[in-house]
């Protein structure tokens, strides 16, 4: 069963009087539980594609369905609800809330969902253990290394049991060893939580972790699928 279905997706960015096409008509289907990598050079459109799938950017034209729901016609409140309930994000620069500690950062989406504080804390504690940061639970992001912060971001992305986790260049700011451990972790979480992972990268070393690879170039999917 496909959790994401994209048909004829186009995205243009106006640059003064010029229109710069970022996606020129992407068709893509992603199955439930996939661990998929989108690869391509800088400016190829992979971040734009992830942003549109993640409901943080909007298509110029085409259809995008996430978890069986067409998202292109939804209003801001509905789109935000989808982000909260169905999607987890892992950003390149970790993007944690600086004034909250590790546990609080992880439980943040659950509290937005109006889950009880006790339930949120229990789930956050489970995840912080799974990502190996139990002893850092009370630390603020500024007190963690890059790799540790990304682990926190992974835990936060998974805390709501989303249908999909999107990660845009999750290893870009990490050294190779740490990057590898993060990908190992993502893969393990994919197996444990059965969550669909889609991550973008332009690092060839990352590819060995992906079960499915989608190559994008100049706004079009070039080669798909490639078995891992």
């Amino acid at each position, binding site marked *: 069963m496909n959790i994401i279905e994209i048909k004829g997706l186009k995205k243009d960015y106006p640059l003064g009087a010029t229109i710069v096409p970022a996606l020129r008509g992407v068709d893509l289907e992603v199955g439930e539980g996939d661990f998929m990598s989108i690869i391509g050079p800088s400016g190829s459109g992979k971040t734009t594609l992830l942003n549109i799938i993640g*409901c943080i950017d909007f298509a110029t034209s085409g259809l995008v369905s996430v978890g069986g729901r067409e998202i292109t016609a939804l209003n801001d409140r509905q789109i*935000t609800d989808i982000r*909260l309930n169905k999607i987890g994000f892992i950003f390149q620069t970790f*993007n*944690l809330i600086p*004034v*909250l500690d590790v546990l609080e950062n992880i439980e943040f989406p659950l509290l*937005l969902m109006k889950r009880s504080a006790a339930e949120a804390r229990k789930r956050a504690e489970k995840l912080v253990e799974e990502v190996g940061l139990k002893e850092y639970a009370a630390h603020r992001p500024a007190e963690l290394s890059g790799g540790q912060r990304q682990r926190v971001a992974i835990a936060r992305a998974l805390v709501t049991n989303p249908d999909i986790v999107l990660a845009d260049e999750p290893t870009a700011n990490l050294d190779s060893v740490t990057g590898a451990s993060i990908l190992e972790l993502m893969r393990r979480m994919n197996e444990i939580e059965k969550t669909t992972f889609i991550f973008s990268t332009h690092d060839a070393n990352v590819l060995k972790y992906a079960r499915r690879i989608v190559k994008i170039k100049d706004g079009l999917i070039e080669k798909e699928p490639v078995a891992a």
Partner: protein
Amino acid sequence: MKLILTIAWRNILRHKGKSLVIGVILFTGAFLMTVGNGVIAGMARGVEKNIIDGFMGDIVLMSDEQKSDNILLNMMGGSIEPVYTYKAIKEVLRAQPYVQKWLPAGKNLAMILNENDATPMALYLIGADLTAYREMFPDNFTVIEGTYPARAGRALLLPGFQRGEIYNYSNTWFMSETGGVVKEHLKKEALEELAALRVSSSIVLMGMASGINSTTDIRFPINGVIKYGALDQIFGHFAIVDLESYRECLGYLTAADMAAQVPQEEKKLLGLEGASLDSLFGEDMLAEAPKAAPVRAAAAPAAVSAEDGVYNVVFIKLKPGVNSGDALRRLNAALTAAGAKVRAVPWNKASGPIGGMALIIGGALFVFVMLLFSVAVIIIVNTLTMSALERAPELGMMRAVGAQKPFIAGMFLGETAILSSLFGGLGIALGVLAVRVIPLLKISTNNDMLQLLYGGNIFSPILSLSAIALTILQLAAVTVIAALYPMRVAARVTPLDAVTRD
């Protein structure tokens, strides 16, 4: 809510510098607003208390013919119209359950005739039954020389302030009949020329009232010299005289005049006042006289009291807790129904420029405080907006992981609200403390304008619970207004900002 407040509080601690700037502004604004409200309230209450309790009561009745409501410090020539219907008024007042007490009085201007040279001065007179006056306004002045008139008859209490003014103008120092010259009260210039000082224990007054063609020069003995307890430089223009002398001085018919037996023919003539003069010589005049004789014989002369005579105003005090607006409406309706030909006017209108000045000063203070808060709002808006823009990636990330716009806006409102509560609360608390401490310092003034601001001779700002509540509301309004634009800016941050601003 807890989550919003937690993040807001930690952000305040994280951005200590900015928080402190906003906090100091809020503290200053709240402090000044609290003290300002205290000053305004103290001034309003002081003026109200001094005028109501000490000078004219809550409501003043005046003739329907009276053009201006201001009967306190009306200009020269603007005399107060006479009221002829006190007996009817009295019956109306007796029937009003909200009226505590009242005092009918005369109030007009008189000339001080200078016996040594030809330049007269003016003095306001309040003519009243002096016993009733003291009962109505028991604490409004102190007799500093002489005594309060205990006996009936011609009497005058001269305000010390006006005595000084008269001395400046006429070189004559007035003293009480019994007190002599009290050196401590002499003006410095008078003291320096003590040997040559011209003194007098009586004063010649000539009433000035419109519509009266004849007034009388009256020599008043000065029974006492008085000092008003508050606003002495304003009330100090008013001398208090006995009612009959007042009427005589102003050329009004006195009770004694009315009690005199007037032959019926003369009454008839008086009754023709204003009619055609030809009728005086008509046949009916001559023919009526014999017919009138049996009537005169049959009717006993009616008892005439001071209440039958002319007044200018009736000062009314309401019972405590009575709504003055409501009382005013009911009283006016009752007076109209009784055909009393007077209208009831609230004290603040009847006191004219004093009430007006108090309002103007109060308004100016309010505008000042509002101006201060406007500046505070601008600075807070600017600081918070900068903060929202600087934190765009963080806010965008929150939006990306599912925070709705109201959550982001609430976070900013929460930050401002916490700062307002802490610093504004501290400002209000210290303001309340200052308002409590200031009266203990007994800061006094003799300046007219400052007396208005102080609400009396001593600076006594006050703060009621409602005034504190008003300050809190104003602070809350400032908080919300100051947070509105930054909230809007913060809520407009998109999840994409979390990615693109990296």
